[in-house]
């Protein structure tokens, strides 16, 4: 019995190390291996060997260091054994620490995990490849898990990851944190990937469940890791705060039947107070200076988190923040969300006029929440016939079961009322 108990304890320790240390171990191994593929292979082997070794020798004091040493030793063995074979393969472009310090004195960051993240999110890779690579290489998810997360066939996801890894080595995408001149753009790409991961998990684009906890958890892990490694970047802290404050509402977003509950109708007592406290602390620490899109979104989420109810929300402040957000990030989603603040400050007639202006801009054509927002405003103005038509339009664009159920509910509501 003790044997089995210790076996499960060791298995739990390996799983925990996988979750916490994978990125660190892979990033440190990639530098020695000179190739992401080889590093991945060796890290996988090291995790495989950990269970038996730890059962035999006891848990190491630092599992991360044990795994890194083991994976690096394997990589060196392979390199030695296959020296002639691998010599001609393009290696990762990774200057040694000292060399790099001499060339770019300003950008030495003493953690290889950042190199890994910036390599995975390099702009020479397509966005979907950036997301897949980040999940595989930084989070250590299997291809199967990633494929399930994004509802694509496993073979498709495997091909996507293989192609991206091939490009990294063939085109020699450097294994490096970009210099100060490129950092803002490159960091934005990294944050976009993490945010995309979070939104995909927060509102699944298809399938039966609204939230995919696994993706949300991974986005949160990545957000925390980035905040730890780049503590002076306001946008990094902004993104983490945004994820925390949005995800704090998770339990309140679905009712007992699994239907979507809008922010307006959510039971705020079910919001996660610890996530909110952590998020608000980050927002308060954002400081002065021109805020970026993630800091502004976090600030908006903070206004909601502080309000005791939808009606008691500081809507003029929300509108002000949306105006600022639209300047730094002119996107359809922002424009539409801003309409809600307009509704609360100036009423449905003014808000409807804004939606109609957006419609004529055509940049929102086919955006599923445009029709839903318009329908809601028409419903508030008691123009039920038009509202039903707009809800129908929104329904045709919605794939998610919870969202569809919500829209069907509204259609029967306005149908009965008019």
């Amino acid at each position, binding site marked *: 019995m003790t044997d089995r108990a210790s076996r499960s304890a060791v298995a739990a320790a390996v799983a925990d190390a996988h979750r916490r240390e994978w990125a660190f171990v892979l990033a440190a191994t990639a530098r020695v291996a000179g190739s992401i593929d080889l590093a991945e292979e060796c890290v996988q082997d090291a995790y495989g060997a950990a269970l038996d070794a730890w059962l035999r020798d006891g848990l190491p004091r630092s599992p991360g260091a044990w795994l890194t040493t083991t994976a690096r030793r394997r990589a060196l063995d392979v390199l030695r054994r296959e020296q002639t074979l691998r010599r001609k393969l*393009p290696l990762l472009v990774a200057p040694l620490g000292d060399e790099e310090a001499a060339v770019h004195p300003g950008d030495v960051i003493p953690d290889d995990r950042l190199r890994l993240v910036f390599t995975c999110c390099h702009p020479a890779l397509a966005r979907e490849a950036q997301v897949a690579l980040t999940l595989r290489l930084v989070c250590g998810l299997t291809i199967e898990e990633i494929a399930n997360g994004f509802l694509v066939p496993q073979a498709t996801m495997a091909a996507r990851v293989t192609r991206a890894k091939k490009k990294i080595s063939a085109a020699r995408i450097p294994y490096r944190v970009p210099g100060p001149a490129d950092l803002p753009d490159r960091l934005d790409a990294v944050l976009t990937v993490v945010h995309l991961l979070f939104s995909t998990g927060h509102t699944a684009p298809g399938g039966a469940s609204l939230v995919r906890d696994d993706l949300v958890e991974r986005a949160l892990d990545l957000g925390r890791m980035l905040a730890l490694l780049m503590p002076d970047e306001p946008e990094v802290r902004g993104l983490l705060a945004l994820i925390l404050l949005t995800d704090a509402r998770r339990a309140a977003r679905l009712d007992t039947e699994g239907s979507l509950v809008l922010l307006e109708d959510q039971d705020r007592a079910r919001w996660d107070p610890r996530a909110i406290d952590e998020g608000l602390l980050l927002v308060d620490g954002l400081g002065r200076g021109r805020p970026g899109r993630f800091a502004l979104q976090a600030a908006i989420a903070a206004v909601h988190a502080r309000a005791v109810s939808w009606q008691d929300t500081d809507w003029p402040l929300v509108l002000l923040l949306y105006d600022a957000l639209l300047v730094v990030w002119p996107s359809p989603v922002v424009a539409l969300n801003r309409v809600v603040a307009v509704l609360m400050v100036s009423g449905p007639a003014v808000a409807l006029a804004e939606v109609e202006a957006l419609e004529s801009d055509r940049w929102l054509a086919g955006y599923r929440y445009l029709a839903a927002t318009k329908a809601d405003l028409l419903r508030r103005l008691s123009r039920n016939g038009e509202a039903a038509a707009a809800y129908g339009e929104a329904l045709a664009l919605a794939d998610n079961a919870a969202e569809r159920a919500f829209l069907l509910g509204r259609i029967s509501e306005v149908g009965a009322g008019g």
Partner: protein
Amino acid sequence: MSQYLILIYSPEGDSDAVTPEEWQRAMVAHGRFGEQVVEMGAKILGGEALQPSSTATSIRGDVVTDGPFVETKEVLGGFYLVDASDLDQALAIGKLCPSHGGGVEVRPIMDTSGG
């Protein structure tokens, strides 16, 4: 260092209509580009401007046809072969490369030395 081919794609104007001043400006731009590449610590290994795509002849199998291989709005107008430390430097070079209202494609060269 690695080699990259920088392919310059531009909307094709009427080459007969190019004034001497425009020609001169383009030459100056490419001369300046060459200097910048050296300043970056990279190297231009070669490069040429191409005659207009109307002078191209394509061969598929045995069939010879008039015109470029792929019909596009922007056509391949010239290229550089450069030696750069990595893709980031190659992309930085690509951004500096004059493309006359078009853009460039950066392609890594395959090492075919074998062994």
